[in-house]
């Protein structure tokens, strides 16, 4: 998956990009097209040469842990970092050699980088003034309305809350009507509740203005909430690219399976096929996996990682095992831990197939017998099983997910 390519959306906005590029098909050129774009610092490769196309008008997220190369990629698009290899094209025009101030992009910086000596109005007006645009006052007022900061035009940045500063940073970039808006961890400095609120807010603004957004984040939930397309990056490469639901349901690697949400990965051996399904066996338990959802070509005797998401699993007490319908994948085990989160309860189950299976059970009717130590049977619809290449590191992406939460500064 080093050369992913998304298809243009069915309805690309007309005003997306001036059609100056030599796009052979004659269709609207992609807002951003990276070709073999890579960056090395001495012997360290921050970004392996990557090809990426971002359709005009889309909300695109670069998701990855600290040091995966996502910020470097963004900075190369902005022109703040010079690529070692490859080219950057915006709206079909090659801008690789252009300095930042000549590119039709604007950036919302990680720590906002608002000008402390200028008030909100002048911060937002900065780009317009540099280009000598007329009607600055009206445009700024309009933009401040869009980000709901109408009454604060004469405040200095240090008199604003984190969320308000964030809005100023968005307004300051958006007012220039860039072809592409780059957002570098824009919500990283906000607390959780405000972050949720701003995610929806940014999504609203993007829908309203129709500008292409490229959003860099380490927060997988943020990426899935906001983006139309998510590129998961790991160690300087794009691991997988797709719509959030598609990535979540069909992870292509153990990294994506573990980094994006939680996955239970069961090491199993293929015993044969039955119709469109593969039959597997793990620690004596028979499991079924749709052949179409298996990412690796294996025949009988081959090994595969069978994955299932925690919320797809149903948990019943061992005494009720007889009531489980036929045709379900089922695995016995014993509860070793549980955690109540309000909407659901999370259980950790020790099972012969996997020592730490995670199950999330919605709090509808709570079975009081389900306490640590209780014997249980887990079962799920075989259609919800996905298969991955067993040659990978089964724990890839687990640590990355943890580190990402602590990330403070982008790797250079």
């Amino acid at each position, binding site marked *: 998956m080093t050369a992913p390519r998304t298809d243009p959306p069915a309805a690309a906005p007309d005003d997306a990009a001036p059609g100056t590029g030599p796009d052979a098909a004659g269709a609207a050129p992609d807002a951003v097209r990276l070709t073999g774009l890579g960056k090395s610092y001495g012997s360290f490769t921050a970004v392996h040469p990557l090809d990426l196309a971002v359709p005009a008008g889309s909300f695109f997220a670069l998701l990855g842990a600290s040091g995966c190369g996502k910020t470097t990629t963004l900075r190369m698009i902005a022109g703040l970092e010079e690529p070692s290899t490859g080219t950057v094209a915006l709206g079909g025009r090659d801008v690789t050699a252009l300095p930042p101030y000549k590119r039709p992009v604007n950036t919302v910086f990680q720590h906002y980088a608002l*000008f402390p000596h200028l008030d909100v109005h002048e911060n937002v007006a900065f780009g317009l003034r*540099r280009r000598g645009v007329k009607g600055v006052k009206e445009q700024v007022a309009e933009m401040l309305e869009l980000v709901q900061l109408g009454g604060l035009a004469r405040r200095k940045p240090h008199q604003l809350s984190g969320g308000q500063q964030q809005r100023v940073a968005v307004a300051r970039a958006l007012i220039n009507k860039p072809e592409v808006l780059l957002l570098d961890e824009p919500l990283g400095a906000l607390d959780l509740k405000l972050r949720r609120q701003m995610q929806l807010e940014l999504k609203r603004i993007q829908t309203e203005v129709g500008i292409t957004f490229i959003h860099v984040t380490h927060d997988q939930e943020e990426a899935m909430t906001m983006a139309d397309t998510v590129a998961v990056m790991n160690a300087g490469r794009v691991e997988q690219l797709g719509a959030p639901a598609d990535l979540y349901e069909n992870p292509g690697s153990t990294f994506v399976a573990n980094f994006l949400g939680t996955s239970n990965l069961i090491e199993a051996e293929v015993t044969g096929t039955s119709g469109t399904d593969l039959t597997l066996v793990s620690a004596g338990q028979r499991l079924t996996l749709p052949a179409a959802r298996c990412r690796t070509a294996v025949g009988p005797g081959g090994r595969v990682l069978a994955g299932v998401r925690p919320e797809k699993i149903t948990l019943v007490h061992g005494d009720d095992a007889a009531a489980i319908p036929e045709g379900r994948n089922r695995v016995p085990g014993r509860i070793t831990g549980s955690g109540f989160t309000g909407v659901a309860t999370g259980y950790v189950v020790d099972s012969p197939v996997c020592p730490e299976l995670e199950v999330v059970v919605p709090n509808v009717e709570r079975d009081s017998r389900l306490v640590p130590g209780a014997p249980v049977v887990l079962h799920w619809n075989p259609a919800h099983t996905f298969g991955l290449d067993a040659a990978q590191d089964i724990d890839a992406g687990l640590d990355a997910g943890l580190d990402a939460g602590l990330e403070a500064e982008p790797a250079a």
Partner: protein
Amino acid sequence: MNPARRRLTPYLLLLAGVAWLLVFFVAPMVYQASTSVQTGSLDKGFRVTWHFATYWDALREYWPHFVRSLLYAGIATAACLAIGYPLAYMIAFRAGRWRNVVMVLVVAPFFTSFLIRTLAWETILADQGPVVRFLDAVHVLDVTSWLHVTQGHRVLATPLAVVCGLTYNFLPFMILPLYTSLERVDARLHEAAGDLYATALTTFRTVTFPLSLPGVVAGTLLTFIPASGDYINAELLGSTNQKMIGNVIQAQFLRVLDYPTAAALSFILMAAILAIVTVYIRRSGTEELV
């Protein structure tokens, strides 16, 4: 600690500082103020006669020295800013791991005395020294003579020498506050400005320089104020035609022994500097800055 003592503590802590100010600032000021309105002579003794005419006489006689002092100090301050700003900028943004080494070099001249350093300039600018001969050979001295800042083939005993000495001696006072304010400017603001269509020059004009204004104001004040009262540079590097007001005050106190005139000149200088500084701070609007 009981409440009464707790209330007293801040005043106790202030005691040493207040005592210092009373003994070494307020008392001399009062004493000099009284001296400035005395009349008399060294033989018969001085007496307070509220003779304010001393101020007027002093001003009438020595106004050229005041003008020259403020002019030299002003030119030296401008030169310090012109030399110090690029240097402070490089140290703050470009020096990298050499930053501390360069800062030590900036402060290093303070390890020798002010007097010794000024005497060194006397040697550097000596009539037959390599510097002057070089400047003469490339006809720089012709230009400076034409501008009336040097005379003939000499640099010593000219306005240029005095201003050079002042510039050199007060340069660190300019660089240090400039560096402190530039160092606090977030380098990411440069990226943000570049992202918003500002060229490097525009970024400097609209972002970096405004943010460094507190340093510019502090640096110019720390240079201008001591430079306008200085007399060592004019004494050692200038001639009688370059005497500054500091030289006059020194002579009145120590040679002519006309204490009232000396005291009056000191107060006039202080008032002039206070007036200039007040106007300057008002104009630069530093209180608006963060």
